């Protein structure tokens, strides 16, 4: 995985996790490009887009676009499932998550991301385990 991006329809970034090094202005450019590419596509289009020399696997949930940028050779459907897994965990964790939850508790979202993805790979796929960990982490606060 090169990076994970959560954007809303207007293009505001709700979460950006980079697994590869980019300069700041490169990051901005990437964000804008991803937004431009992903918002034009409606339901009739596939969930995979070729983007520079990578691939973007994305899924739209209400007003949010969850995008994962992977290598061309990676299996698309795997990451699509990973996105869905991630969103389900978020849902459980925040109890019917909405966009505002992500905005106000963004550091918690980051910890969820870190539980499920690490160093560019999928780390944990079992939702129960992830939720257990997160509960323990939040009890420490």
């Amino acid at each position, binding site marked *: 995985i090169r990076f994970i991006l959560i954007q809303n329809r207007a293009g*505001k*970034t709700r*979460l*950006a996790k*980079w*697994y590869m*090094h980019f300069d*700041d202005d490169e*990051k*901005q450019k990437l*964000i804008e490009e991803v937004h431009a590419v992903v918002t034009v596509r409606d339901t*009739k*289009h*596939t*969930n*995979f*887009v*070729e983007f520079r020399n990578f691939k973007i696997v994305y899924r739209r949930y209400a007003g949010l676009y969850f995008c994962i940028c992977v290598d061309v*050779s990676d*299996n*698309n*459907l*795997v990451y*699509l*499932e990973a996105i869905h897994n991630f969103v389900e965990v978020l849902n459980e964790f925040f109890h019917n998550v909405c966009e505002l939850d992500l*905005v*106000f508790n*963004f*550091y918690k979202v*980051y*910890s969820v991301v*870190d539980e499920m993805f*690490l*160093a*560019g*790979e*999928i*780390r*944990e*796929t*079992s939702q129960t*385990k992830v939720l257990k*960990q997160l509960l*323990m*982490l939040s009890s*420490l*606060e």
Partner: protein
Amino acid sequence: MALKKVKGTLERVLDKNLQDLVRGIRNHKENESKYIAECIDEIKQELKQDNLAIKANAVNKLTYLQMLGYDISWAAFNIIEVMSSTKFTFKRIGYLAASQSFHEETDVLMLTTNMIRKDMSSQNMYDSGVALNGLSCFITPDLARDLANDIMTLMTSSRPYLRKKAVLIMYKVFLQFPEALRPAFPRLKEKLEDPDPGVQSAAVNVICELARKNPKNYLSLAPLFFKLMTTSTNNWVLIKIIKLFSALTPLEPRLGKKLIEPLTNLIHSTSAMSLLYECINTVIAVLVSISSGIPNHTASIQLCVQKLRILIEDSDQNLKYLGLLAMSRILATHPKSVQGHKDLILQCLDDRDESIRLRALDLLYGMVSKKNLMEIVKKLMVHMDKAEGSHYRDELLSKTIEICSQSNYQYVTNFEWYVSILVELTRMEGTKHGKLIANQMLDVAIRVQAIRHFAVSQMAILLENSHLLANNSQRNGICEVLHAAAWICGEFSEHLSNPKATLEAMLKPKITSLPGHIQSIFVQNILKLYGKILKAAEAKEDDSLKKEVHTLLQEKLPVFIQSGDLEVQERACSILQIVKYIMKLEEKGAAVADEVENLYAGELNPVAPKAQKKVPVPEGLDLDKWINEAPDDSSDEEVPGNTFFLTTEDEHRSSYQHGDESRPTYEPTEEELEKRKAIRKTEVEHNPHYLKDDGKGHKPRHKDAFDAKDIPVAEIDLSVPLHVPGLSSSDKYMVLQQKTEKAHKGKKEKGKKKKKKGKGKTQAEESDEDEVAAVHTVSTIVDAPEGMAGSDHEDDKKSGDVYKALDINLD
């Protein structure tokens, strides 16, 4: 003192926490940057405080701002302070900020080494966890070197939570610090058999990523992975392992053979699409490597193709896309199996999603045959007309041309049809492939002799209507077609029915609005046509025609002399001089048409692509020696106007190298030739604008159409497609073909032989199709220096990058 404290508390009460910040930003949508600048100032104040809670709060806010795109690298030191706090929440905030904003350039990273080490060995597993998390984002070679050992010990920790993290981080460590791979590798192997499935899958992940780049080092692990594959039920792990195998099979064909069995089982049994897709991909990879032809692998291919068909027929766009993608991989090696699904692919062409259409296009490339080429191309043209995005249209256009021209036009039976297709394509608006079309026209005209007559007549019509095409010359690829048209008319002018009319068309003043290189072609070809006309006129002893032509040229050529492009100027001047000269000679009564025509004698063949490189260097020639003495920086590179034009005679000699030539009354001696050559060479070296013409490669200058040139790109915007009278429509050929097909169906058994020259292909491969006779033959003669075997395969090795460093033998 007490006042200070009170003040401090007050301030703390008023401090914004994260929620306030976010709310504030949302409320201040109009003057957002101003509000944020205020907030940043406040944050700077807070950071100066000693209280860690305040600092942590500030860092939290900074992280949020960073996500919005503001740079927070100035706070790096403060972030480290927060990271070093003992309270877990603060520490986590610090690490989060670090992972977002630190990168290799951050100077303060070296301060973090010890702290991270301490965190990693802490008793609290969450501390170490968060440290590992953060580390993965900002690890540098120094950090990697120092911390590699600690991470390795963590891999054997008692808690699976930590083991997992440590294993995954090792990958990043390896990328930064490859020497760590060798000692860490045995531990990594152990993790593959770890009781906890999470750790196991983490280890599989890491090894898969490593193996993808340097597969041969990991072949020894193959049996282990095999066992894992057959025993594991976790889909995620399976997918990774299968992908690993597809990377390994090119190196180890026996592995491939063993794999087919379990893979086909999996394909049959699984219901997960992702797993299915991965298996199919791997099977294809395996079959590519054992292309020696085992009987039972055709069954596997059939299975794959079947499954892919199901994927493509599915209504879910994603599956369709993946199915098409995999099919195109099969197409590369087993085109026959895919051909049966042509109808499905054609259907996909009508899909609404552009990426699916592009994939289907790619597949079509391998599916054309003589019979359906016309239909397919017609369909593509219809698409092009109603295509929305110009990118897609360009793709279509280039693909169409590629399909038609593959393997020396193997599938094009009727070249008249093809030429008319090309002409129709020129009417396509706004495309940047004008050059491609032009190339094709030139190619066809040169190589297919029989078609020249037709091509020339079409080109002549194009020229006459060139004013329509020359309108918008900013980003225009269509102009390039005029380039081809002019050249074809000039070169094959014997087929022109009315050379004088074409000459007039070429001299129209509108031409001057075309880009420079096109104008120069025009001027060049004007001379060729002129020669032709002269010859005809002389044969008929038609003096009045000669006079007409002369006056025409004398009137119109000066326009070109005033052109801004140097090439055009040069050529126009030289031609004008020739014309004046010839007129003088005419008055004296000498017949010069022959000589003029001899300027262009000799047939031009296409040059093989690597011919220039293959020319053997003649002995005794040292390419690195200066030809003359080293040129001193002479300041007369900008040659003043007069002397420039006086040297046109030398330029003649260089331009017309490809033909025999002799000036009518002026025979230069050997020495003078040598002297002129030397003068010219120095001239050439000094003149920055002169386009060098190598004597070796037989590459006449206007053949540069085959090389990439900088084309001034221009926009053409024709809202109404042109209907130019006289240009034939491609439809009539299709109808013609269908009629002849019906007539020929009865004669199928008579076995028509194909008359293609120079083709190695036998009929056996196409035995199941009707043999459609080629109407025209394609010449495959290509210019090349002697002894050139075939084109080289020059691999361009990509630069090594990090993964090469990981290429260590691990046994």
